[in-house]
């Protein structure tokens, strides 16, 4: 349009690209990376064999190749500031927020040992070895001095074991190993960043005095401890703030993000470990915040945390691929190969040595296979790349470092990442000689494994329960009172199951069958008579093999695998827990005897559960949940065949019925029966109501009549029972105060 020639006319159509260029291109990049992710998951099998990071880098390589061929430069966005201020925080926030605290604290010594000492060992070892290599004239890298080598070594010591974690979860690694790898990956980010800043500072100094080394060590501790303290401070403030947010639910998630980011930035201000600060902040905050905020906020927070982290990490890997093609490399065979070699060697030796030292202090010791898994699972990832790419240009031989790092990352991610699954499976397979097992053996041995696991849990094998107990007491008496909006004493069954069951209820609604009673695949609704009359079948070898197959694929693995937090890219998955509970629900519904007033009261109680609970995540949640599992009283094992905890099953299951209105269809005695039925009609969808204080007090009202109230059943205190027929569900108190009778 000729608008410039004739400014008096109104331009009908204009284009102003420069104005929107930056956000536009950013959006395109993010979209592109996300499309890549969609692409991978369409064919699900791929992600089993090839870790996601591989795929992302590959796509990046392709895009880089395209850009290179059209002589385009990738956007020069990945500067130090952008990385450290914008891209790193979401990743570590995600790490901290979804960290399974219970197993972590039980293994905190080991985790820190491997993370801190291990990273130091690796950095210094690799750095020194490389420096030694640099002395050899033939390789032409003599100008790299010690500090620079150490700097580079610290960068490539940062491991990112996501791919390894996925593999381990599938094959079966004990929980201890799992949490150690997870924790190590988490904390060595912090350690690496600290080392990085230390060494880059040192690299600038022309001469390093010995006192600088001591100062360095001192600084290390200051940085570390300072970070943790800052994190705690901000975490508690955040928790305290959310105590008052019940009227502004919409911005509740904001506080989580703002406070953690603030913790990060303030720590950066004082040049202490911002990574540790944000992780600590997230851990501290999560526990209290999730009790104070509404369920929607809770879900929002989790989703957004995951989303930001995924975007950030995806971008980094993607960028890695692009930059590999487009950047100017400086290749030195010697340096790169030796780097690879030393990285392997030092990590391997490090694992051996460290494990030997720490094993005596552990109740469950690591054997050689575990150590192999630990060592081999040390893939390098996003942080490594970002750190090296943001090295200032005044670092001598920066390009060489970039090249070498990229080479290592690509090697570990592709080669190790893809091969770790077959290798670990191979090692594992040799343990059990499957062919000799009969079906009996397979079933019974798995059953025994579950039993042993359960007994071990019962005996508290894993937990240093003394300290945990002390902390819990402190927590109850002091912290919860201050930080929680609605603090109930811990022994409230209501909140416990709410969480679990509401989520179940919601999920159940998603299944094609809205009513559990019509779920034939779970329960045998087939004629039992048919079974007896059936003549003995002949089973072919093929049938038996198929059975073995079914068993090995579908039998629940023992708890030693921490299912909930396996895949870093997904939200914690509690489908297994759900299944177990759904099954129990169904079985309890079948066996629910009519006229059992107690059960009915529980039913009613649980039916009226509110949505206070957040999305269930099997780690912490179950911890708290079961701490609360005080099923009201104990009913004798009256029903001859029924399992003892039938009552308990009630409590769990009927919760599931809460939103779903899965009221038992048996005849019910007393006034509650009709109320239940009434509810059934009224509630087609899970009720996501904010609960009032009163909601939480349902149990006791009913309970008191049937049995002496169970000890420690707090809600009895002065809260009106919700036993009026039909009331709870019909009472739609949406935005009123959230009763959070929890933990």
């Amino acid at each position, binding site marked *: 349009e000729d608008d410039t020639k004739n400014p008096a006319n109104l331009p009908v159509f204009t284009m102003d690209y420069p104005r929107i260029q930056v956000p536009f291109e950013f959006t395109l990049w993010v979209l592109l990376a996300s499309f890549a992710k969609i692409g991978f998951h369409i064919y699900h099998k791929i992600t089993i064999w090839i870790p996601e990071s591989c795929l992302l880098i590959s796509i990046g390589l392709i895009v880089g190749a395209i850009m290179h061929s059209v002589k385009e430069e990738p956007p020069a966005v990945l500067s130090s500031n952008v990385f450290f201020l914008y891209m790193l925080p979401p990743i570590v926030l995600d790490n901290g927020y979804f960290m399974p605290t219970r197993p972590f604290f039980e293994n905190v010594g080991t985790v820190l040992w491997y993370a801190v000492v291990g990273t130091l060992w690796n950095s210094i070892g690799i750095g020194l070895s490389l420096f030694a290599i640099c002395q050899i004239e033939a390789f032409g890298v003599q100008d790299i001095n010690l500090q620079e080598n150490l700097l580079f070594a610290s960068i490539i010591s940062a491991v990112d074991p996501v791919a390894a974690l996925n593999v381990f979860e599938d094959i079966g690694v004990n929980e201890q190993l799992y949490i150690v790898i997870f924790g190590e990956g988490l904390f060595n980010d912090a350690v690496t960043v600290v080392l990085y800043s230390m060494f880059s500072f040192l690299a600038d100094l022309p001469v390093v005095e010995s006192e600088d080394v001591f100062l360095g060590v001192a600084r290390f501790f200051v940085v570390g401890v300072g970070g943790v303290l800052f994190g705690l401070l901000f975490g508690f403030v955040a928790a305290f703030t959310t105590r008052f947010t019940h009227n502004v639910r919409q911005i509740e998630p904001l506080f989580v993000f703002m406070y953690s980011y603030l913790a990060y930035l303030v720590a950066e201000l004082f040049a202490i470990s911002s990574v540790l600060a944000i992780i600590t902040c997230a851990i501290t905050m999560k526990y209290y915040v999730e009790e104070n905020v509404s369920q929607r906020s809770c879900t929002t927070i989790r989703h957004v945390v995951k989303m930001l982290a995924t975007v950030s990490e995806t971008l980094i890997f993607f960028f890695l691929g692009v930059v590999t093609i487009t950047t100017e490399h400086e290749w030195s065979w010697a340096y790169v190969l030796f780097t690879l070699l030393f990285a392997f060697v030092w990590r391997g030796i490090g694992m051996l040595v460290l494990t030997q030292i720490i094993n005596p202090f552990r109740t469950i010791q690591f054997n050689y296979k575990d150590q192999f898994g630990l060592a081999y699972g040390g893939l390098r990832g996003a942080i490594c790349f970002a750190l090296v790419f943001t090295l200032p240009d005044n670092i001598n031989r920066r390009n060489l470092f970039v090249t070498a790092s990229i080479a290592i990352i690509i090697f570990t991610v592709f080669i190790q990442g893809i091969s770790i699954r077959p290798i670990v499976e191979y090692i594992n397979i040799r343990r059990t000689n499957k062919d000799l097992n009969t079906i009996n053996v397979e*079933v019974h041995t798995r059953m025994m494994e579950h039993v042993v696991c359960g007994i071990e849990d019962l005996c508290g094998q894993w937990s240093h329960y003394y300290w945990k107990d002390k902390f819990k007491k402190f927590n109850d008496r002091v912290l919860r009172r201050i930080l929680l909006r609605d603090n109930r004493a811990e022994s409230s069954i209501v909140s416990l199951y709410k969480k679990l069951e509401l989520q179940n209820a919601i999920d159940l609604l998603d299944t094609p069958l809205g009513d559990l009673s019509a779920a034939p695949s779970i329960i045998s609704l087939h004629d039992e008579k048919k079974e007896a009359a059936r003549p003995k079948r002949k089973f072919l070898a093929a049938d038996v093999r198929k059975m073995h197959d079914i068993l090995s694929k579908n039998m*629940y693995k023992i708890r030693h695998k921490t299912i909930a937090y396996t895949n870093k890219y997904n939200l914690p998955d509690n489908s297994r827990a759900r299944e177990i509970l759904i099954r129990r629900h169904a079985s309890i519904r079948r066996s629910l005897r009519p006229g059992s007033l107690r059960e009915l009261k529980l039913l009613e109680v649980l039916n009226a559960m509110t949505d206070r609970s957040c999305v269930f995540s099997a780690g912490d949640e179950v911890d708290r949940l*079961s701490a609360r599992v005080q099923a009201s009283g104990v009913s004798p094992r009256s029903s001859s065949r029924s399992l*003892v905890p039938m009552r308990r099953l009630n409590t769990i299951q009927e919760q599931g019925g809460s939103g779903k209105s899965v009221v038992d269809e048996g005849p019910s005695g007393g006034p509650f029966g009709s109320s239940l039925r009434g509810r059934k009609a009224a509630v087609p969808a899970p009720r996501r109501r904010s609960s009032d204080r009163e909601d939480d007090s349902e149990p006791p009202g009913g309970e008191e009549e049937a049995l002496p109230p169970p000890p420690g059943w707090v809600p009895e205190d002065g809260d009106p029972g919700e036993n009026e027929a039909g009331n709870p569900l019909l009472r739609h108190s949406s935005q009123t105060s959230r009763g959070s009778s929890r933990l």
Partner: protein
Amino acid sequence: MGSSSSSTERIPDAQELMQETGFSAAHLVRLYERFEFLDKDDRGELRLDDFEAVSELAMNPIGDRIIGAFFSPGRETVDFPSFVRILAHFRPTDTNRTRNGRNGAQPEPANSRTSKLKFAFQLYDQDRDGKVSREELLQVLRMMLEMQVTEEQLQSIAERAIQEADLDRDDAISFDEFKKSLEKVDIEHKMSVRFLE
């Protein structure tokens, strides 16, 4: 951690318990501490809810059965001796302690292979008739299998299991048949827990 002394003074009948179960004093003390920890209301005995408060048991597919095993029929609480007696089943088998080393008239130790198997057997056999019927087997199978296994597949598996083990053709698995089917399995290791001191 916990009380520093490993004295068994606080534990009633400690000596008899040690004798009966084979636990050492250190083990017993630790178990007692654990018992006290589980016993949230300091009643001196555990009730169902105390067991259920252990979160991991909630997530155990056969958690209910395990908990149920602690309660003697008709009783609603578990006192410390009963607690320990059940746990004694899981003590690692003493390889150096032969039966002859103790009084020959002693009953089968709680952690012998047979006792361990009996414990496992009773997890199946809820009605205590000495046999695991098809239905009982199916119940446990259902608990242990994920939901996508169809009923038909379940039935086949149970059928096959019974066929393999059932020697006297009564369509149920007796304890001896159970024992025989597991003769190649290292029960001593599988059903042992390393108790902490």
